[in-house]
């Protein structure tokens, strides 16, 4: 039994160690965003000056707007494009299906930097000026394959007779699509949209190669600013971490709370 006890202590120590490893940098980053001095290593007092600097910094505010607007728009387009493509693929002949899916896998399996330079070369051969629109288009291009991959499994489980029945009952193909097929594959569409959003929100490598003319998202800004120590990055990161943690907690805790509520009501 002594063995079992020391076993437990060891397990606990390992888990604590790994969690410390994962969270120490993030916590230290957050703590020093409240530091009174520019130093990221020695604490000299509490202050909100870096948050003030952040909100006064036009470049940073622009980067936040760019990141959010590109993430929202690219998610919207990629979700529609990907869902329609997935429906088409699922009804296509085997050869077409295999061909489309293997090309579709390219941006997923390729290192990001390869996708990035491919798009950069495409824009330059078409003589397109790099800027906001090129970044938006790139984000739609790299996130659509993920939408397709997340919608397809739902379509595979869909009973083809149901859409057929809707058509027999007088629905136009568009109505059958919108009122019958889409609601049934909605979970796949939503998870695809979420993946597309996070991919776009976090993207650095592809944005870095395909944007220009001073258009920057948060990642590019962090990359260019981090060459010098800059606590405003810490302030910005802290806000991001807090928002992401809050969203994740709500998403993860909501079903749990609901379950508890149901249990209570059942009692």
């Amino acid at each position: 039994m002594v063995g079992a006890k020391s076993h437990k202590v060891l397990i606990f120590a390992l888990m604590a160690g790994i969690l410390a490893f994962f969270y120490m940098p993030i916590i230290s980053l957050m703590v020093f965003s409240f530091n009174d001095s520019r130093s990221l290593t020695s604490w000299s007092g509490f202050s909100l000056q870096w948050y003030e600097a952040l909100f006064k910094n036009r470049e940073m505010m622009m980067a936040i707007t760019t990141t959010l607007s590109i993430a929202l728009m690219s998610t919207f387009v990629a979700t529609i494009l990907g869902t329609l493509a997935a429906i088409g693929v699922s009804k296509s002949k085997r050869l077409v299906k295999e061909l489309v899916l293997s090309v579709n896998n390219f941006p997923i399996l390729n290192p990001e930097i390869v996708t990035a330079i491919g798009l950069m070369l495409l824009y330059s051969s078409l003589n397109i000026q790099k800027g906001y629109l090129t970044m938006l288009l790139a984000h739609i291009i790299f996130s659509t394959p993920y939408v397709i991959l997340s919608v397809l499994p739902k379509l595979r489980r869909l009973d083809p007779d149901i859409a057929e029945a809707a058509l027999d009952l007088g629905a136009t193909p568009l109505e059958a699509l919108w009122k019958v097929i889409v609601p049934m594959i909605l979970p796949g569409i939503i998870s695809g949209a979420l993946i597309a959003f996070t991919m776009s929100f976090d993207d650095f490598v592809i944005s870095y190669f395909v944007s220009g003319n001073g258009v920057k998202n948060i990642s590019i800004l962090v990359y260019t600013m981090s060459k010098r120590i800059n606590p405003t990055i810490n302030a910005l990161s802290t806000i991001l971490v807090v928002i992401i943690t809050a969203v994740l907690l709500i998403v993860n805790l909501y079903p749990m709370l609901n379950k508890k509520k149901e249990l209570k009501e059942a009692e």
Partner: protein
Amino acid sequence: MKGYASLVKPYIVWMSLFIVVPMLLIVLYAFTTSGNELISFRFTLDNFFRFFDPVFIKVLIKSLEVALITTILCIIIGYPIAYIIANASEKSQTLLILLITLPMWINMLVRTYAWISILSDGGLLNSLLEFIGLPPMKLMYTDFAVMLGMVYNFLPFMIISIYTVLAKLDKALIHASHDLGANPLQTFLRVVLPLSLPGVISGITLVFLPAVSTFVIPKFLGGGQYMLIGNLIENQFITVGEWNFGSAISLIMAFIIMASMMMTRKMDRDASENTGNEGGKLW
């Protein structure tokens, strides 16, 4: 129903233009000389020959070395962690997985940037060393810093992919092995480990691929002079402007990555065949 098949047509056009054409452009650039007009190309293999300079070969070997060590470290650290989580109570499993995946949602640049202040000369780690009476160490801009950054960024992928396999493992097999007289170590080595190999293999893909091609982590934690193949490509495109040479390097990198993926897949297949055979012998 068949009518919906035509919905794929716009995407085929889209895909050809935005996925296939860019790939072809990389190939075209890699095999031509610079300064081409759109109509007349001059094909050449010089871009590839140029890569066989000891300087560049060294960079390639270094990238493979760093990515390989990172992958091995992720297996060594990730496997026990995944094993512990998979054997915890269901409630702790959900919580622990949430805690492990949470940092993955934070921007990779931010996570890597966070290490700079910890590893720097007067940083947290060195203060800790000082506190326990050890001499300060140069941590930033070393191989150690780069690999630490990589392990930090990619370890969650390894843990999650091993965990998903271990969590689905049929516990009856473990009981059966115990009942048949195997001690815990034998059970682990001959039942659990072989069955969890697919998780390890997919973890290797998820760690090795980004580790070979990243240029952010070496730039942040290795400094401006630290060169991995990703930095080399970035340099060719952003600073030097040698797009043809850069395309050739990317092709070489993509080729190496594809080859190593195929090798790991083959290993996976061989491994599952072997366990199948052993099962056959057992019966």
